[in-house]
């Protein structure tokens, strides 16, 4: 169960004067049950990359393999693939359209060919997983708050029972509380359902906290693909790309610069708290 991108290149507007290489020779393996953070500046090709993972975009050159099969082979069922690799777009609340929340979540499973009863079970489970109040199930999705809408949209993808869940900037435009809720939800999904997660973000703090591995993209290329600690050791290079390191990491660096003996490879708030508590003793 893995996704392999083999020399993938994608060009926008390839027959105009304005041809832009959004992806340039990307090589990437996404393993089972991995939590991959994908970061990069606006326009670095993150969103383009994730649209390749479920076959919405076809690479200009190169191949993508899902479980060992090229997804652009003629007889490959790309619709079934979209059930296996669930993609939640940026601002996914813009895709809601049914009269009720529950019906909207049923849309995905229905398209996957599930029976009506199965759809309802799947929708119910998905809505429960995203922690939406049961009394909202019969409301119009348009009447919900921003954070609630986003949960519904994520549930709409979860209800298809994907093995891989790809989220494109799921926290954009949410307040800090909404952000934490969504990210915790994603972490739970990975733990409880054993899903592979790909989380796209331009916030270092988001990915440092949750991801096992981080991919850093810049101008269509993969610059780093490593554990958070190793990636954030390249603070200077990251800053040159306009990215920087998580806030705790830079706090630790300031402490070290001020002559306090703290380790430099801290990337999460919890780790920092432990170190500082030990220091205060």
């Amino acid at each position, binding site marked *: 169960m893995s996704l392999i991108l083999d020399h993938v290149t994608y060009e926008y507007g390839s027959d105009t004067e304005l041809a832009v290489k959004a992806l340039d020779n990307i090589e990437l393996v996404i393993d089972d049950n991995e939590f991959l953070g994908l970061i990069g500046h606006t326009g670095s090709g993150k969103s383009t990359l994730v649209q390749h993972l479920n076959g919405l975009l076809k690479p200009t050159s190169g191949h993508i393999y899902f479980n060992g099969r090229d997804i652009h082979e003629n007889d490959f069922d790309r619709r079934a693939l979209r059930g296996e690799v669930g993609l939640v777009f940026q601002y996914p609340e813009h895709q809601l359209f049914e009269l009720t929340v529950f019906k909207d979540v049923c849309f995905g499973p*229905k*398209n996957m060919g599930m029976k009506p009863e199965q759809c309802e079970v799947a929708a119910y489970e998905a809505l429960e997983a995203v922690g939406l109040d049961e009394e909202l199930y019969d409301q119009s999705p348009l009447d919900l708050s921003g954070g609630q809408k986003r949960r519904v949209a994520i549930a709409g993808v979860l209800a*298809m029972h994907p093995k891989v869940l790809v989220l494109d900037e799921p926290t954009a435009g949410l307040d800090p509380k909404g952000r934490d809720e969504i990210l915790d939800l994603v972490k739970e999904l990975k733990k409880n359902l054993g899903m592979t997660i790909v989380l796209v973000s331009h916030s270092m703090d988001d990915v440092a906290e949750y991801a096992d591995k981080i991919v850093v993209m810049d101008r269509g290329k993969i610059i780093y693909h490593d554990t958070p600690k190793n990636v954030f050791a390249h603070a200077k290079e990251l800053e040159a790309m306009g990215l920087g390191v998580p806030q705790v990491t830079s706090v630790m660096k300031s402490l070290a610069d001020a002559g306090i003996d703290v380790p430099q490879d801290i990337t999460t708030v919890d780790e920092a708290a432990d170190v500082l508590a030990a220091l205060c003793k």
Partner: protein
Amino acid sequence: MLRDITLGQYYQTDSILHRLDARVKIIGTFWFIISIFLINRVSGYLVAAAFLALVIKLSHVPFRYMIKGLKSIMILLMITFAFNIFLTPGEILVQFGPLHVSREGLVLALKMAVRLILLIIGSSLMTLTTTPNNLTDGLEKIFNPLKVLHVPVHEVAMMMSIALRFIPILIDETDKIMKAQMARGADFESGSLMKRAVSLGALLEPLFISAFQRANDLAMAMEARCYRGGEGRTKMKPLIYQKKDYLAFLVIYGYLVVCVLIGRVLPLPF
């Protein structure tokens, strides 16, 4: 997929055509369309096609890019062609059951098809080389005299420019929503009619909601900047004819005369 629609879009590049005053291009396009309907001979069409080819060359817009936009209206072309070829009475060439192809029908169908193609390429050349802003500025200026008759010229121009401005936004939005629904297994290309209609709802409903939302936001933003219509409004870059614009007018009227002479008036064999 939807990005392939080039009709009415602006193509960013630098050329003599891009730099011309918008009014020249609007009036030029108008006369070009008139010329196409004045001529009725092969020789005339040749002149029109040659003129168009020259202008395309000058525009620096790749021909391939224009043709891509034509694909979407292929169906319209085919329908016109079919109607003309099968439903025109005259000297019958071939007969299939109730349908027949007459000599007059064949000629008419070909003529109409050529006219339509020239017309569409000609007018899309105008939008390809003129930004929507310039286009509406030009139109506003051309129709300015109508203000005497209390025609709301500025308001109409403003509405047009907003409508034009919204085309690419809505295309982008459609693309986005389409992809989001495809990621949820929606199928817009195959399946039964019923199934496709349901999928279309999944596309159109969010699209309408967002269009209204955007219109609302825009109205607010205009209000916040004290927009109050055209009265007393000045332009940052007023349109003023330059030497090259007068020259372009000369070329256009020259073409018109030549085209009508060759395509209609002069006693030529074809």
